[in-house]
């Protein structure tokens, strides 16, 4: 029996899916913000820390980097209740993604710290900059320029990884695609449209981030 593609049955749901895309962007935003903050601290510890604290952070980062996000979230969602920590699906996914992102963002921001050169700081001191001025006029412009492209890449990658949330029943883009699939059984149509949404979403995000980087931070080079 031949199957005919019928996109007509899916069109009423396009706005519903767009809402899911918005949730995906938010989830990615939450994960990114928390991951960025944790990553900043961890990157500082990795670069300037000593002893057990540094080993603990490095161990954490290496472990997270080398295990799948899905299994990490499974662990948070199914295994932590064994020791008395009970989380809802949205929270579990958000925490899992934030922890996962924090490891990647640690490595990225570490590279940012590394790109700072001793001479720059010396030069700032020589012309009499205070500590705040040094950070404002020397460290930040430099670090932002180095970090902006990889950080934006990470945000876009996070937007794509939010699709994993669907497995835990969070109704973001993929989750909503699952829902529509259960109602209409137009599986191939729905998932191709969901794929198209992701393509458009990340494409728009790349373009916006590229222009932000280009105009505000004078970043050269492309984003994702």
């Amino acid at each position, binding site marked *: 029996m031949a199957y005919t593609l019928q996109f007509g049955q899916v069109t009423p749901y396009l706005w519903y899916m767009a809402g899911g895309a918005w949730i995906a962007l938010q989830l990615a935003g939450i994960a990114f913000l928390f991951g960025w903050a944790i990553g900043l601290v961890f990157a500082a510890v990795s670069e300037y820390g000593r002893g057990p604290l540094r080993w603990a952070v490095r161990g954490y980062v290496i472990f997270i*980097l080398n295990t799948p996000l899905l299994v990490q979230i*499974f662990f948070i969602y199914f295994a932590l209740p*064994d*020791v008395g920590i009970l989380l809802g699906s949205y929270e579990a996914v958000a925490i899992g993604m934030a922890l996962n992102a924090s490891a990647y963002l640690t490595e990225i921001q570490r590279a940012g710290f590394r790109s700072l050169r001793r001479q720059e700081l010396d030069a700032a001191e020589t012309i009499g900059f205070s500590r705040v001025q040094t950070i404002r006029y020397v460290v930040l412009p430099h670090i932002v320029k180095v970090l902006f492209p990889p950080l934006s890449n990470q945000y876009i990658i996070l937007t*794509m990884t939010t699709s*994993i949330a669907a*497995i835990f029943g969070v109704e973001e883009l*993929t989750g909503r695609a699952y829902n529509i699939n259960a109602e209409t059984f137009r599986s191939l149509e729905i*998932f191709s449209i*969901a794929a198209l949404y992701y393509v458009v979403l990340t494409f728009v995000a790349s373009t916006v981030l590229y222009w932000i980087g280009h105009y505000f931070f004078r970043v050269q080079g492309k984003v994702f």
Partner: protein
Amino acid sequence: MDRLLEEIPRFFNYYNMIFIGQAFFYTTAMSFIGCTVGFAAGFGLAVMRHERIFRSLVLRLLAITYTEIFRRIPFLVKLMVVFFAFQLSGLEVSMFTVAVTTVALSAAAFASENVRAGLESVHDNQWDAAEAMNMGGLTALRRVVLPQSWPVIIPPSMTYSVGLVKSTSIASQIGVLELTYAAKVMTNKGFSAFLCYGTILVLYFVLCFSLNRFAAWLETRLDPTRHRPA
């Protein structure tokens, strides 16, 4: 905690070990086959879109469209599309094939980008020189450009392959018997989730960490700095 300790000897018995070992094998096999096929395809795509080899706009556009689209679709969604596309085509394929195809499709998109970066890292003069020696595009690629671009291509491709090994955990969603699915089965048998997911986390770690170390070793070994264009 006591319950957990009591479970451990039951969990690590002979049959469970064989079961998890098989799952581990499936994870590695899926990643390896998928990445190899995908890398070959991605290599083809990169060659297709290179202006010194084929001067066909159609080929270039095709390659660019494929790469740009497929690297922007999440693995789970891609898996679903491939799954239902196979169903539509009426071919009777195993879930393993579906998962391998998805891995290959992802790998192709990213390999294409890596190979392109590698080819671009070789200075244009090299192409000109090869042309002056009366070499065709493909001969120049094989004898002049490629030997210089491997060091730029291989390390990021290895890193990306490790990412795909991790992505294969998503294939548990369609019921491929790999590590994540094995952990699910074990939890359904009544073992605590802590033990099951903890065990496979360690297994994934062993696999990915050793691959990453290998990639890092290759990177220092191949030393791309020598090959940067002037």
